[in-house]
C-alpha cells in the first residue's frame, strides 16, 4: 500500500512543482474570418521556450512563470501572431488568425510543430484544402479516398472507400464524426464515402501508438470534425457534378454567439434515367395487346444531410448540436395488367435495397477554470440495412354478372439488420503546466444489435401467414475509462503514456480489457527524432463480411457468450526528420497481432438466415508487419506526399485452410500512394494522384477432378457403374492462393477559379484512371467459344472524365 502511494506521488509530483509563482494564459484559437475553431494550433512563449497546442475544441491553457511573455500563435496556412505583455495574473485571451490562403497564393512557412517534434507517432492530420485540390472519382472529393493514399492504409477493391489499416479489417477502424462512431461510411456500395467534404473541418488518422482516449477498435481512428458554422457572416458553397450536387450554407444566427451550418448532397442518376425508362415503357406498351399494360420503374440514389448548431453561452460554456443522416436506396417496381380468358390479372411488385446512418451528438464544453476543460457528449448512432420485396396479385372476373375479385394473393419478404447506440461520455483536459497535458474520461455506450432478421408474409385470399426467423437481438453496455499524460520529460524526451480500461456487458457475460498505451519521442538533434510506441487495443464488436467488396450486407455483431471480443498488440518504432522546415520524412516499422477475429465458415454467407450468425463463424487470429515511408511537403506552391508501404499480413483459423496460415485478402507487399498539388497562379491549380498496389490475394480452384455424387456404394439404388453421376470439383489447395494482377492508376485534375461579383466559382476538370488501366475487380474461370477454360478478369472503371462546377459566396 505504502509502495503504491509512493509510486503515485512520484508519478504525479511533476504536475505540482509549478504550482507557485506562475500565471496561466488560456482561451480559444479561431479563424478570424469565420470564427471556426483551429484545432492543434501552437501557442508558444518565445521567452521561456514553453508551449502548448489547442485541443479538439480549439481550447488552450499555458502556465508560465510570472514574467514578461512573448506568445507566438501559429497554425499552418495562417498568419502567425505574436502577443507581448508582462503578466502577473491569470488571463483569458482568445486568438484569431487570418487565413493566408484567402489572399495569397504562396503559402508561407508557419512555425507549427514539425513531425519530428511530435510525441505521437503513426498519426497524420489531413487538411481539407488538400483534399479538395486532389483529383476525385466522378469529381466527388472524398476524405476516405484521400486517406487511402497514405502509407499503412490500403484500399479494398477497385473504387471502394473501405480501408484496411496495418493488416486490420474494415471493422477495426473507429470512424468518428464529431466524436460519434459511424458504422458504415459507404455510399453506392462503397464507391463514395458518406462524408460531404464541404461540411468537414479537419481529419486526423491514427494507425498506431494510440493515445489512451481512443478505444473500441483495433487498427485505426479516423477522427473527423465537422465545421461549426461561420460566426461572423453568412456564406454558402456548393457544386454541381456529373452524378451528384451538393450545397452547404453557414452563418450566424446571433453574431459571435450562435452559428449554424447545413450541408446536403444527392445523386441524380435515377432522375436522369427516368425519361429513358419512360420512353422505353411507351415503346413496349405500343407493342403489347390492347388490354394489357406493363410498367417498370427503378433506380438508385443516395443523399446525405449534415447540420450543426454552435452556441456560445458565455466564455465558459458552449453547446454544439450536430446531426448527420444519409441513405442509399436501389429500387425496382413493376406493374403488369393482362387478360386471360374472362379474367383480368394484375400483378404488382416492389423491391428495395437500402441502407443508411443517422448520427447525432449534443456536446457541452465547460471551461471549469483556466487549466481544466470538460467536454460532455450525448451521442446517438444508428445504421440499418434492408432488403425488401413485395408482390401483390389479383384476378378479377370480367364477366358482366360477376366483377368481383376471385383471387388475391400477396407475398412479402424483408431482411433487416441494424445496430443502434445510445451513449454518453465525459472528457476532461487538465493542463497543470506546459510540460504536462493530462486527459481522462469515462463513457458508456448502450448497443442494440439486430443481426439479420428475415420476415416473410403470405396472404392468400383472406388468410394471412407470417414467419420471422434469423439472428437474435443482442443488447450490451460498453463502459470505458481512460487516463493519459502527454509529458515533456526533458528537452529531448517527450512521451504520451496512458491506460484505457473498457468492459462489456452482454447477456450474462462480462468482458474487460486493460489496455496500456505508450509512445515516446527522443530528439536526436533539432531536425530529427526517434520514436516508439506500444498499444494494446480491445474491440467488442465484430463485422461479419464475406464479399470482400464492402457491401452493406455486412453485419455488425457483438462479442457474446460464444464469440469473444477482439484484441491486438502493436509495437512500432520510427524515425522522423524535417528538411529545411519544408519537407517531412517519417519511416516507421510495425508489428501487430490480432486475436479473436471472426470469419464466415466455408460456404456460409449472410443470406442463410435460418442459422444464427454465431453458428456461421470461426474464430482465429492474424498478424501484420511492415515498413512505412512518408515524405510530405506541406508548404510552397507544390505540396503533397509520397507514401510507400512494404507489408505482410496473414490469418490463421484452426478450421479454415486446414489450420494453416494463409495470406489475408488484402495482404499487399508493395503499396504506393503519390498525391501532389501545384498552384500555377492564384486562379489555376492542378492535382495528380498515382497509386500502385500488389494484387489482392483471392481464392481460386487451380485443379479440377470428378467427384461422385452422393451415393456411390454398390448396393445403393442410384449407383450406376457405367455412368456414375459426378460433380466437378475445383480443388482449392489454400485460401487466398492466387494473386490478382497489380493495381495502378493515375488521376489528374485541374481547378480553375474565378472571382465573381457574388463570390468565387471553380471549374474542376478531372480524369480518373487517366491511362485507362483495366484494374482487376474479380477473377473467374470462364470458357471460350470452343469450350476451353480461360481466366477472365472483370474490371470496373476505365478512364472516367469528370467536370464539376463549384461556387462559394
Amino acid at each position: 500500500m505504502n509502495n503504491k502511494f509512493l509510486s503515485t506521488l512520484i508519478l504525479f509530483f511533476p504536475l505540482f512543482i509549478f504550482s507557485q509563482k506562475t500565471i496561466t494564459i488560456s482561451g480559444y484559437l479561431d479563424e478570424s474570418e469565420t470564427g471556426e475553431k483551429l484545432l492543434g494550433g501552437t501557442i508558444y512563449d518565445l521567452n521561456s521556450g514553453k508551449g502548448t497546442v489547442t485541443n479538439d475544441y480549439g481550447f488552450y491553457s499555458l502556465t508560465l512563470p510570472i514574467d514578461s511573455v512573448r506568445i507566438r500563435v501559429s497554425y499552418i496556412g495562417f498568419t502567425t501572431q505574436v502577443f507581448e505583455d508582462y503578466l502577473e495574473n491569470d488571463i483569458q485571451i482568445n486568438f484569431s488568425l487570418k487565413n493566408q490562403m484567402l489572399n495569397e497564393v504562396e503559402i508561407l512557412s508557419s512555425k507549427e510543430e514539425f513531425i519530428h517534434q511530435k510525441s505521437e507517432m503513426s498519426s497524420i492530420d489531413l487538411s481539407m484544402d488538400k483534399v479538395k485540390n486532389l483529383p476525385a472519382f466522378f469529381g466527388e472529393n472524398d476524405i476516405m479516398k484521400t486517406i487511402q493514399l497514405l502509407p499503412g492504409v490500403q484500399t479494398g477493391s477497385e473504387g471502394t472507400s473501405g480501408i484496411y489499416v496495418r493488416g486490420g479489417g474494415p471493422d477495426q477502424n473507429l470512424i468518428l464524426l464529431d466524436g460519434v462512431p459511424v458504422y458504415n461510411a459507404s455510399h453506392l456500395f462503397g464507391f463514395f464515402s458518406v462524408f460531404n467534404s464541404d461540411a468537414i473541418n479537419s481529419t486526423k488518422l491514427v494507425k498506431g501508438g494510440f493515445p489512451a482516449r481512443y478505444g473500441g477498435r483495433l487498427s485505426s481512428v479516423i477522427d473527423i470534425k465537422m465545421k461549426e458554422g461561420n460566426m461572423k457572416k453568412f456564406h454558402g458553397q456548393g457544386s454541381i457534378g456529373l452524378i451528384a450536387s451538393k450545397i452547404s450554407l453557414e452563418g450566424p444566427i446571433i453574431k459571435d454567439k450562435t452559428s449554424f451550418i447545413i450541408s446536403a448532397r444527392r445523386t441524380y442518376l435515377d432522375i436522369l434515367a427516368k425519361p429513358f425508362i419512360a420512353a422505353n415503357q411507351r415503346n413496349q406498351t405500343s407493342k403489347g395487346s390492347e388490354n394489357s399494360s406493363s410498367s417498370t420503374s427503378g433506380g438508385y440514389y443516395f443523399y446525405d444531410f449534415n447540420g450543426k448548431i454552435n452556441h456560445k453561452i458565455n466564455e465558459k460554456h458552449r453547446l454544439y448540436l450536430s446531426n448527420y443522416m444519409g441513405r442509399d436506396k436501389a429500387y425496382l417496381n413493376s406493374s403488369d395488367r393482362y387478360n386471360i380468358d374472362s379474367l383480368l390479372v394484375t400483378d404488382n411488385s416492389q423491391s428495395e435495397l437500402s441502407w443508411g446512418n443517422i448520427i447525432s451528438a449534443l456536446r457541452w464544453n465547460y471551461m471549469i477554470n483556466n487549466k481544466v476543460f470538460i467536454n460532455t457528449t450525448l451521442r446517438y448512432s444508428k445504421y440499418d440495412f434492408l432488403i425488401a420485396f413485395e408482390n401483390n396479385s389479383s384476378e378479377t372476373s370480367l364477366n358482366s354478372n360477376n366483377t368481383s375479385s376471385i383471387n388475391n394473393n400477396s407475398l412479402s419478404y424483408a431482411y433487416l439488420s441494424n445496430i443502434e447506440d445510445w451513449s454518453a461520455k465525459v472528457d476532461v483536459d487538465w493542463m497543470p503546466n506546459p510540460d504536462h497535458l493530462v486527459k481522462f474520461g469515462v463513457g458508456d455506450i448502450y448497443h442494440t444489435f439486430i443481426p439479420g432478421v428475415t420476415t416473410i408474409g403470405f396472404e392468400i385470399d383472406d388468410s394471412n401467414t407470417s414467419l420471422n426467423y434469423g439472428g437474435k437481438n443482442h443488447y450490451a453496455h460498453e463502459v470505458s475509462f481512460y487516463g493519459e499524460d502527454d509529458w515533456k520529460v526533458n528537452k529531448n524526451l517527450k512521451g504520451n503514456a496512458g491506460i484505457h480500461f473498457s468492459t462489456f456487458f452482454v447477456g450474462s457475460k462480462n468482458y474487460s480489457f486493460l489496455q496500456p498505451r505508450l509512445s515516446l519521442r527522443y530528439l536526436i538533434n533539432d531536425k530529427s527524432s526517434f520514436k516508439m510506441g506500444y498499444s494494446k487495443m480491445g474491440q467488442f464488436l465484430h463485422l461479419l463480411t464475406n464479399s470482400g467488396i464492402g457491401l452493406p450486407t455486412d453485419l455488425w455483431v457483438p462479442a457474446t457468450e460464444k464469440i469473444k471480443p477482439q484484441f491486438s498488440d502493436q509495437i512500432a518504432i520510427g524515425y522522423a526528420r524535417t528538411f529545411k522546415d519544408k519537407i517531412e520524412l517519417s519511416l516507421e516499422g510495425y508489428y501487430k497481432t490480432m486475436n479473436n477475429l471472426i470469419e464466415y465458415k466455408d460456404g456460409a454467407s449472410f443470406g442463410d438466415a435460418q442459422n444464427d450468425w454465431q453458428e456461421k463463424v470461426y474464430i482465429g487470429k492474424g498478424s501484420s508487419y511492415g515498413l512505412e515511408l512518408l515524405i510530405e511537403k506541406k508548404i510552397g506552391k507544390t505540396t503533397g506526399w509520397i507514401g510507400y508501404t512494404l507489408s505482410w499480413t496473414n490469418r490463421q483459423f484452426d478450421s479454415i485452410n486446414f489450420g494453416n496460415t494463409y495470406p489475408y485478402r488484402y495482404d499487399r507487399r508493395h503499396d504506393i500512394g503519390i498525391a501532389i498539388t501545384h498552384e500555377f497562379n492564384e486562379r489555376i491549380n492542378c492535382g495528380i494522384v498515382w497509386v500502385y498496389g500488389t494484387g489482392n490475394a483471392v481464392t481460386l480452384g487451380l485443379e479440377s477432378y470428378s467427384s461422385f455424387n452422393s451415393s456411390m456404394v454398390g448396393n445403393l439404388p442410384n449407383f450406376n457403374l457405367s455412368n456414375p453421376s459426378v460433380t466437378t470439383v475445383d480443388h482449392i489447395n489454400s485460401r487466398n492462393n492466387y494473386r490478382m494482377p497489380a493495381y495502378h492508376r493515375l488521376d489528374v485534375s485541374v481547378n480553375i477559379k474565378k472571382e465573381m461579383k457574388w463570390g468565387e466559382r471553380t471549374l474542376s476538370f478531372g480524369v480518373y484512371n487517366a491511362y485507362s488501366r483495366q484494374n482487376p475487380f474479380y477473377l473467374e474461370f470462364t470458357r471460350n467459344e470452343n469450350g476451353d477454360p480461360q481466366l477472365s478478369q472483370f474490371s470496373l472503371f476505365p478512364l472516367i472524365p469528370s467536370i464539376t462546377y463549384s461556387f462559394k459566396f
Partner: protein
Amino acid sequence: MKKLFFIIIISLIYVSCEKIIPFEGDITIPKLVINSIFESDSSFKVHVSSSRSVIDTASFKNINDAVVSIKNENGNIIETLSHSQNGFYVGQKKPVENQIYTLEVDHLNYTNISASDSLPIPISINYLDTITVIEPNNENRLQINLNFTDPANSQNFYLVETYVVRASLTTINQDTLEYELDTIKQRMILTDVVFQNNGFKSRDEQGLFTDLLFNGQNKTLEIKIPPLKKDYVFNENGKINSEKTLSLTLYLHNISKSYYYYRTSLELYVDASRNPFAQPVQVFSNINNGFGIFAGAQISYFVL
C-alpha cells in the same frame, strides 16, 4: 438473394468490362483421383481417374491401367483389384468392421497415391415405425421414427437418405411398349436438432449428423417425408401412360469420419458454387498425393 445480386450487378454492369488474362499460377501436374466407399456387404470397388489443371482443355480421364491394391493393418496386400470398366476396379473380398484398410494405387505416369480408412461397426436398430401426420397446411406427411443405439465411447457419424422407386408403363391395346423402373432421391424434412451440426445444416436431400448430442445413448430420429409424387394414368391417342410409386426406402449409414468430412464439405461446395457471396469451400480429401475419398460406411436400409 437473387434480387440483391441482380441489383448489384445492374449497378455495376454499366461500367464493368471483361478481358482474358494469362494464368500465372503453376500448371499443376495431373494427380490420381479416387472415388471409393467400401461397406460390409460388398467387395471393394474403386474408381480411378485423373485430375487436370483448371485451364487444361482435356476432359477427365478414367485410368484403366493402374495397379490397385488393398492392404490390411499389417501392411500385407489382401487383394489386388481388377479393372472392370471405365476406370472401375473391383475385388472379391469384403471388408470387415474396425479393420484399417489402406488403398494403394500405382501408375507409371502419375505419383502413386495411398489412403487409409476403416469400416465402422453396424448400427444397432431398435425399432422403426411410421405414422401419417397432418400438417397445419393440411398436407399429409409420412413421419418415420427410427430408434437406434449409438455406440458408447466413440465418435460416430451418420448419413440418412431416402429413395423412391417409380415404375412407368406405356401400353397400347394391352401390349407393353415400355416398362421402366427409376430410382429417385426423395426429399426429407429434417427438423431434428442433430442436423444442425455446429453451424453446418444438412440439406433435405441427405441428412448428415454426428452423435455429439447423444453419444452412447438410444436416439429416436424423426424424419418427415413430404407427399410423394402422385400416381397417374394418361391416355394419349390410345397409348396409355401410367406411373406409380412402388416403394420408399430409408437408408441409415454409419460412416467414417473421413467420409463425413468429405460429404459435408462437398455439400457446402455445391451450395457455395451457386452463391456469389459465400465463402469458398475446400473439399476434404483423405488421399495422400491425390484427390477424392477412400472411406468406409455401414448401411442399414428399410423398405417402407
